[in-house]
């Protein structure tokens, strides 16, 4: 019998040391591991590196709480009419965090290098952009002589990939509904994988349709079950974006952040436990 990997959110989050690099799943306001992100803040984590093609709420609130040292990202915004991510923007402009600006696909290329076990990975496009020079990316000629040249992106190996999933088995198999965004490549590139899930499904249900499993249990270190954990974002098909909650999060003030953290589903759950 395999043992359950399900542990409380607080315990899962405490596996992350200050200074860790975290690849966060989802995209903008959709299926991000946001309960985990808020728990990082509650636990006072510092000097984190956030790796994500399209972060938004997650990088913004982590910058707001002073948890971030560095980020590698392709596009950062709150989306859904909210525009720029204000606390992230301030953190970059005041040089409180370091930004490595990517195209989404160049970040994926770096993750692929890690997943494939090679030091770098070619990435299509990028020609003419100022990003390669900014980041020191090298262009190499096709060694097989087609005359094509391609940029190569150095390996990106996050300490952790953290995924918000729809369903997990007790052993840690992971299922997501709808698009998997970049979660799959993140789970293959990181040293360890942490999962927050809406609910547990039986091992038998996973075995009956194994092709629906995005991440097999042996890649997963720990799982926390947090219903509505992607709030204030969406988790298809369970719930949509809570736009009023995002709007209420945005104004300045420590009290606003505190109220937002207290209103989160995982905090409400703890208060009633």
């Amino acid at each position, binding site marked *: 019998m395999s043992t359950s990997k399900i542990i409380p959110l607080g315990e899962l989050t405490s596996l992350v040391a200050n200074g860790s690099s975290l690849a966060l799943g989802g995209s903008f306001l959709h299926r991000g591991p946001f309960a985990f992100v808020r728990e990082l803040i509650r636990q006072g984590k510092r000097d984190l590196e956030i790796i994500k093609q*399209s972060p938004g709420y997650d990088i913004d609130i982590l910058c707001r709480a002073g948890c971030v040292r560095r980020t590698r990202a392709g596009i950062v915004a709150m989306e859904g009419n909210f525009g720029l991510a204000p606390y992230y923007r301030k953190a970059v402009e005041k040089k409180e965090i370091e930004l490595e600006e990517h195209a989404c696909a160049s970040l994926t290329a770096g993750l692929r290098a890690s997943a494939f076990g090679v030091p770098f990975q070619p990435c299509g*496009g990028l020609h003419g952009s100022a990003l390669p020079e900014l980041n020191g990316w090298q262009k190499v000629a096709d060694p097989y002589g087609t005359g094509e040249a391609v940029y190569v992106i150095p390996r990106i190996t996050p300490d952790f990939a953290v995924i918000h999933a729809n369903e997990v088995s007790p052993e840690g198999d992971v299922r997501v509904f709808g698009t998997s965004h970049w979660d799959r490549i993140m789970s293959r590139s990181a040293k360890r994988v942490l999962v927050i899930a809406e609910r547990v499904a039986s091992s038998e249900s996973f075995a009956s349709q194994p092709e629906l499993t995005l991440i097999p249990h042996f890649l997963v270190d720990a799982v926390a079950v947090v219903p509505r954990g992607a709030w204030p974002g969406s988790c298809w098909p369970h719930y949509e974006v809570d736009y009023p909650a995002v709007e209420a999060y945005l104004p300045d003030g420590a009290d606003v952040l505190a109220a937002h953290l207290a209103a989160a589903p995982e905090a409400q759950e703890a208060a009633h436990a």
Partner: protein
Amino acid sequence: MHESWSPFSFIVTNLARFVRPHEVTFSGVNSTLPMLACLLAKRAYDFEFTYINVAGGVDPQPSSIPISSSDPVLAEGSRSIFSNEDFYDLCTRGEMDLCFLGAAQVDGLGQTNVSSIGDWHNPKVRLPGGGGGAVMLPTARRAVTWRTEHSRRTMVEKLDFLTAAGGMAGVVTPIAVFVKRDGRLALQSWHPESSLDEVRARTAFTFDAEGAGPAEPPTERERDALRSLDPTGTFERDAGVRLRPEAAA
């Protein structure tokens, strides 16, 4: 008498007019107007095309039109999920016919800045970043962008930072439609309530305007399609697009 053509409708309709039969067309994150344009094209035009989007949808039948252009509702009714890695790979191997990409600044070559206003290392404004741009703009068969503000600070002679090269095949603003001709943006048409002089005055790069004229007003089907997508005018209000900046008080 035509009712006046709102600048919001002007942008969405003219974006939709870049969609061609039997092609693969993509809309991404932070792209509400292109999302509406792709859905408008599905409803207003008789030809078939494949619409894929950043929510993984392939010719979806969304039950509602989302505020966020990456909302999972945009995969409703889709018979497959074509995820982020899939559509980037499709683009870099040269099979993406048309993709819509955002821009803060556009220059006369159709290159874009989505990174920073001011020096990248000392930004006055840190912008979102290009997302797909640097990879998709040079590898898509055609890419089209839009700006809800047409001014000399958005349509620039020189970009503050060159996020994505390769050159847009089309640029749509509240007053103008540009297309690529001989490697540069050329004016194709202007809003019927604008003029060539106004477009020139509000554009910092030089452009060819040969053959340009007022844009064809929306057809009844284009109007109906947009109305069906935005029956309460919520998207139009949220977009807040104006033909001209309000006069200083």
